[in-house]
């Protein structure tokens, strides 16, 4: 067990002292499709320090997954295009890196857990083969050694009887079990950054909690940084330290989990929080954000959220707020500008049940 797949990273302290592990600067990812250009990600910036956890939240189609696929450079280009931006990983720009080097980063430095454990495992190989794949690719281990490592990593993600499981095919495992296999696969090379793209969405509720708990413990144990993509604010509350809220390809609000969940500034964040059913609101009508996500080919003028925003006033339809424009700078909303003749600032509605979750 020495040299286990999950050693404690002594390097964390030194690395986190300096610059961020991952720094995304003004990333834009566009898709050229028949009807025009979809700006799936439109100028977002954020960073993750080594060993830290960041949640990216937003409803479907807001660009969360495209962000993670852009970081991993897994998008097919064309139709995708990244016209501008930098993705600095340990100071190196992943976007301009040669393919050969990028392959060494994938799986080895940055690993990914996908949403659908049902379809993200190859049906014709045993789970052992698939975990061993990454190890063979990056560490040049023999088949035998890689296989032993696969058994070890299955053990590390809490799978009983790993010697037997390792020889099974994906279709013989349950959804939760497969997601554990995916996590084992992602961790097999001790990545410095783990990207989890909706890791619990396809699982049922009881398994969700287990998988989140597992991600948290392995993240803790390995000292890997975690970027968690989800639409579920409950998941965010339980798992990460910092949050970025995305809407229509933009970041609308960022901050610590406490700040964002307990004192949301952006009307969209407030709407998201308001739409979670809670124990305290029995019998009350569930709040929803009225309207739908804007048509990607026909974005509204000014703020993307303006047509759905209950607080929208003139500036919102004229200019596009970005992070840094307002005061405080961590929200992209004209309600927070000094010059604005703001009608009413959003009512802060603390979520007491989420406070409980935060401990």
């Amino acid at each position, binding site marked *: 067990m020495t040299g286990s797949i999950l050693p404690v990273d002594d390097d964390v302290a030194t690395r986190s002292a300096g610059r961020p592990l991952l720094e995304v600067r003004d990333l834009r990812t566009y898709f050229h499709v028949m009807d025009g250009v979809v700006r799936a990600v439109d100028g977002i910036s954020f960073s993750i320090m080594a060993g830290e956890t960041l949640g990216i939240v937003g409803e479907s189609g807001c660009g969360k997954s495209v962000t993670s696929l852009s970081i991993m450079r897994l998008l097919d280009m064309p139709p995708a295009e990244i016209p501008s931006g930098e993705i600095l990983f340990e100071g190196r720009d992943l976007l301009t890196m040669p393919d050969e080097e990028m392959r060494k980063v994938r799986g080895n430095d940055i690993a990914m857990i996908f949403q659908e454990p049902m379809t993200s495992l190859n049906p014709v190989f045993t789970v052992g083969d698939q975990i061993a794949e990454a190890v063979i*690719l990056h560490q040049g281990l023999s088949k035998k050694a890689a296989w032993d490592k696969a058994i070890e990593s299955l053990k590390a993600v809490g799978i009983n009887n790993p010697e037997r499981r390792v020889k099974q095919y994906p279709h013989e495992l349950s959804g939760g079990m497969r997601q554990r296999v995916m996590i084992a696969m992602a961790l097999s090379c001790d990545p410095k950054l783990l990207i989890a793209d909706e890791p619990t969405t396809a699982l049922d509720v009881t398994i969700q909690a287990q998988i989140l708990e597992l991600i948290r413990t392995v993240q803790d144990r390995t000292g890997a940084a975690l970027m968690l993509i989800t639409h579920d604010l409950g998941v965010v509350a339980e798992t990460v330290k910092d949050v970025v809220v995305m809407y229509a390809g933009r970041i609308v609000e960022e901050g610590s989990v406490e700040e964002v969940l307990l004192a949301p500034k952006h009307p969209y964040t407030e709407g998201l929080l308001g739409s979670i059913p809670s124990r305290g609101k029995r019998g009350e009508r569930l709040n929803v954000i009225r309207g739908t996500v804007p048509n990607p080919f026909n974005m509204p003028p000014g703020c993307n959220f303006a047509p759905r925003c209950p607080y929208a006033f003139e500036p919102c339809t004229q200019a596009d707020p970005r992070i840094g424009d307002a005061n405080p700078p961590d929200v992209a909303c004209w309600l927070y500008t000094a010059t604005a003749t703001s009608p009413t600032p959003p009512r802060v509605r603390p979520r007491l049940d989420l406070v409980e979750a935060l401990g």
Partner: protein
Amino acid sequence: MATKAATPATVRVPVESRASRGLWRDALVRLRRNRPALVGLACIAIFVFVAFFAPWLAQYDPNKGGLGKTFEPPSAAHWAGLDKLGRDELTRVMYGARISLVVGVVSVTVGLTIGGLVGAIAGGVGGRIDTILMRITDVFLAIPGILLAIGIVAWLGQGLVQIMIAVAVANAPIFARILRGSLLSLREAEFVTAARSVGASRTRLLLRHMLPNALTALIVAATLALATAIIDVAGLGFLGLGPPDPRTAEWGTMLTDSTEALRRAPWLIFAPGIAIVISAIGFNLLGDGLRESLDPRLKR
């Protein structure tokens, strides 16, 4: 076996996750439960057995005439009767199986190799190469298989090798299409993205992650193509484009000969006709059975 598995260590393991016997073993188990496929397999077994052991099974020389009256009806000595030259029809059908088997297997193998290569390049590389290769494939696919085969035999001349080439060329574009199609859909599969995310290269993705998944479709197509090949060979023979030596015992040629004598000796069409049907149906049934049993997701 159930009692043996009930050791304390495995008691907690749910029933659905019993140990796998491996993908191919599992497929075999499923195939054994598939009755039509077994019937198909039996037909093929008879066909192959007869082809291999024709000289020992048959009591006569396929080309020796004058064994009795011409167009002698079936009798105890000649189960399928005698043809216009007094040759034993059953013996000729047995020898004909050899031609059908050899031509079928060779042409499908050649077609599979060419088509597989084209499909793998088109589906794996994509882009302009894919477009060019697929347009060429389309041209071949636009011409009905048997017509294409007739054209090739007409162009290259009569002969067994020419027939093999003709049937191979008629089959290759189908294999190319199938392989390319499954590779394209696999490219979108999440597990391929997952494999990319652990750092697999393009070639490795294609050869190790995608091809094995596409293989099952190809195996099924090849089995079904064997049936078509046998019919194509017989069809060419029936149209007078069979082996150049008219004495060669070939099912299609024999069928033509027997239709000419349909009024005098109607029984002559049965032996070659039944032989074609049995062998073609055999491969069709097996192909369908394989399609069902090779899909690991259809388990149970």
